[in-house]
């Protein structure tokens, strides 16, 4: 049984999520007595192939083509359809990155197959692989399985597997080029420059304490309360995406997959549900406190101290207690 893992890279570097998915592949291969190979698409990618070849894989499959020099959904899909046709893998595993979100559903549809996306893990039950994935922004989980023939396309959420569990190879595994002629493939999207918005005014990555506010704050005016708390704690203010989307705080206060990644000594999450896209940006914090009125909020999954209650009651009391401490 062949298990393929798609390696993702940008600017000559492998995305570290790739290592996590290789770990997923290595586990799955052990369960199903299969072999794992990495698939790498691009141009001038020999170095990356060698880096992958140092891991315990069956082989590293490489498709090199001018038309893969930059990622496009058309180029990636055409190349992978051909890889899958020639090699007939049973599984194609990917990370649920922005790039995979962009082409993996297209690939699945072009193959007429299902894609099970954003998986947290899997188990093998009587030979069937059952995947667990979050629904309702992680408040509930679902067990899902394929109701169709292979190839099975799966994306795993960042952090679902631990990159440091990767098994290295005792000697480099073979690298094999797959010849594919992409010249007849129309590439309809034209990728232009990659950029950041004008300089970030605040760098939250070096903050020691962060008071982060979410949609639970309800309105821009209520942010005054958060400012007072931040002042009492001598902390920086951070926010979840909806707070920035609404324009209540500038984008450079946003924490999460599309914002900043922080690891302060103290992270106070106030009225934040704890969606994965937020959590990836703050889970490295040393002490996490969550204030949320919903006892099922996923943020309590990673909090050291939890307060189930109304932030509009708790926060004023907390400001008062901190002021007393000062005096």
């Amino acid at each position: 049984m062949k298990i393929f893992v798609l390696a993702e890279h940008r600017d000559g570097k492998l995305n570290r999520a790739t290592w996590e998915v290789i770990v997923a592949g290595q586990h799955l291969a052990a369960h199903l007595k299969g072999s794992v190979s990495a698939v790498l698409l691009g141009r001038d990618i020999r170095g990356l192939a060698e880096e992958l070849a140092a891991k315990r894989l069956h082989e590293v499959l490489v498709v090199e083509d001018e038309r893969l020099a930059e990622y496009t959904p058309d180029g990636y899909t055409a190349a992978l359809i051909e890889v899958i046709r020639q090699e007939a893998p049973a599984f194609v595993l990917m990370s649920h990155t922005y790039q995979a979100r962009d082409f993996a559903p297209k690939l699945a549809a072009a193959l007429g197959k299902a894609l099970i996306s954003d998986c947290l893990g899997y188990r093998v039950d009587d030979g069937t692989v059952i995947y667990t994935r979050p629904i309702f922004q992680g408040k509930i989980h679902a067990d899902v399985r394929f109701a169709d023939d292979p190839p099975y396309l799966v994306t795993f959420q960042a952090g679902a597997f631990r990159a440091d569990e990767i098994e290295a190879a005792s000697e480099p595994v073979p690298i094999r080029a797959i010849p594919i002629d992409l010249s007849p493939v129309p590439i309809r999207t034209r990728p232009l420059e990659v950029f950041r918005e004008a300089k970030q005014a605040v760098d939250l990555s070096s903050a020691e304490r962060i008071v982060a506010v979410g949609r639970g704050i309800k309105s821009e005016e209520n942010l005054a309360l958060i400012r007072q708390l931040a002042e009492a704690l001598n902390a920086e203010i951070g926010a979840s995406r909806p707070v920035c989307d609404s324009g209540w705080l500038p984008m450079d206060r946003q924490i999460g997959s599309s914002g900043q990644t922080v690891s302060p000594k103290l992270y106070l999450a106030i009225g934040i549900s704890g969606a994965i896209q937020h959590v990836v940006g703050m889970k490295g914090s040393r002490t996490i406190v969550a204030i949320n009125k919903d006892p099922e909020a996923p943020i309590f999954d990673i909090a050291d101290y939890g307060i189930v209650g109304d932030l509009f009651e708790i926060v004023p009391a907390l400001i008062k207690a901190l002021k007393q401490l000062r005096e």
Partner: protein
Amino acid sequence: MKIIVCLKQVPKRDLALRLNEAGTWIAEADLSWEINEPDAYALEEALRLKERLGGEVIVCSLGPARVEQALREALAKGADRALHLLDPAFEGLDAFNTARVLAEALRRESFDLILTGLQSDDHGYAQTGVILAELLGLPHATIVMQIEVLDGRLKVKRELEAGWFQWVELPLPALLTIQSGINQPRYATLKGIMGAKKKEIRRLALADLGLSAQELRNKQELMRVFFPTKAKRTEFLEGTPEEIAARLVEKLRYEAKVL
């Protein structure tokens, strides 16, 4: 410019969810519903494009009878007409088959642009829009934060991870999946709400689309849903707000040593 917006109705945010008895989905009986957040941004973007360039905005939703409320809301905000894909056979479809039905319905419209949200708050597949593009043979871009219409082409700003963006050009007709935050959605006006009552909501069922139930066999099966067990032992602080505050300060000071 003729723009189609695909939108989905999802349970209102902030509701306490319960599971149905069989543990196969949530209990839907007493929920209230709203337009999926990124889809609401997609609708707003379509309305702005129409205001700038002229044309028509058509909203399309697949779902049970309650979905009509979401379509009315979209019409009240300024969409011109609506398609409601309604059939018992459409219940519980996976991403592929949902896109399949949408594709059959939209094939009949000569559109320039389709907008969808980037994912839904319920299933969160993040797939339906992209599959729809493939089934209709359209180029697409996902996680879009800005749209510029050039001569027969689009230039769109895609969000990448960690605060990065990328401009991408693609020809029309095309499909874009929209990210929350691309704009500030409007509220419906009273006039809009009144006007919406006269706008058309066309219902399309399985047979109208030339599909059969057998063709819509799910490719992935949702077996059960459950509340996850918490991985970490969170220490919950209880009491009155004052007691909680005092205990937290103490914990932060002496246990966590961050004060």
